[in-house]
């Protein structure tokens, strides 16, 4: 008893597998978008997947960093009334708080920029509007990240 038969219908042979076997008596039909050796290599990267994952991972870290920041600046020890140059100098004397603020700056800016990128993609329909809104967004984001980083690294408590 043979395991393969030549199909009488128009079903062509599927790559690497006989059309009829004992286990698959019905004709085997290839999935429409199955990647095979013949299909061209994808030209798209995984940027959107990476961005999606980044939103979730940075979000978890930001919950800790930002709620800690709010507790220190707005709740503990007199709330906002104690904030001033001397308070900032006291906190940035410690590398721990410098790293905390630097990490918070980078993660929050990138998280927010990616969120706004999504919103522009959703609501701005004309190609020109999308281009200019994103150009503005990326410029403002790079400027703010660089400015904030510079301020943290070059902070001078004895500026005057």
């Amino acid at each position, binding site marked *: 008893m043979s395991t393969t038969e030549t199909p009488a219908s128009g079903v062509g042979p599927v790559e690497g597998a006989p059309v009829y076997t004992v286990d698959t008596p019905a004709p085997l039909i290839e999935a429409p978008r199955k990647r095979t050796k013949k299909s061209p290599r994808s030209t798209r990267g995984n940027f959107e997947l990476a961005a999606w994952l980044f939103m*979730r991972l940075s*979000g*978890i870290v*930001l*919950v800790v960093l*930002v*709620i800690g920041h*709010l507790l220190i600046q*707005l*709740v*503990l020890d*007199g*709330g*906002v*009334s104690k*904030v*001033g*140059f*001397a308070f*900032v100098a006291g906190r940035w004397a410690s590398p721990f708080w410098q790293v905390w603020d630097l990490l918070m*700056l980078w993660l*929050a*800016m990138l998280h*927010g*920029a990616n*969120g*706004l990128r999504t*919103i522009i993609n959703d609501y701005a329909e004309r190609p020109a509007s999308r281009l200019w809104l994103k150009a503005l967004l990326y410029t*403002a984001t790079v400027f*703010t990240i660089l*400015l*904030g980083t*510079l*301020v943290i690294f*070059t*902070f*001078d408590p004895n*500026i*005057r």
Partner: protein
Amino acid sequence: MPAGTLYRGREGMWSWVAHRVTGVLIFFFLFVHVLDTALVRVSPEAYDKVVATYKTPIVALLEYGLVAAILFHALNGLRVIAVDFWSKGPRYQKQMFWTVMGVWIVLMAGAIYPVLGHAYRVLFGS
């Protein structure tokens, strides 16, 4: 009389809308906040002058709004992560939304005195 057919949204849709709105508000505040903090590189006086506006009653009220936006975005963000990564997340998304709202109300009640106490003392004396 037939029931209305206009889709008015449920917990899932409205939490998505609120997540967007609070996210945009927080992002715009972040720009301003990095700029005002950058004044520590100008002079202590310039920084203290701009921080003084953060201590006025009207801005204190805005700070309370900022805390409201951040807490909602943080709690609902954790809910979104649970929906995406927890196998039973989608089934319990509605319960998780109301849990978020409950925790949010408790935290907002707890933030009234610390965030607005200073403004109260400015307006009505100690």
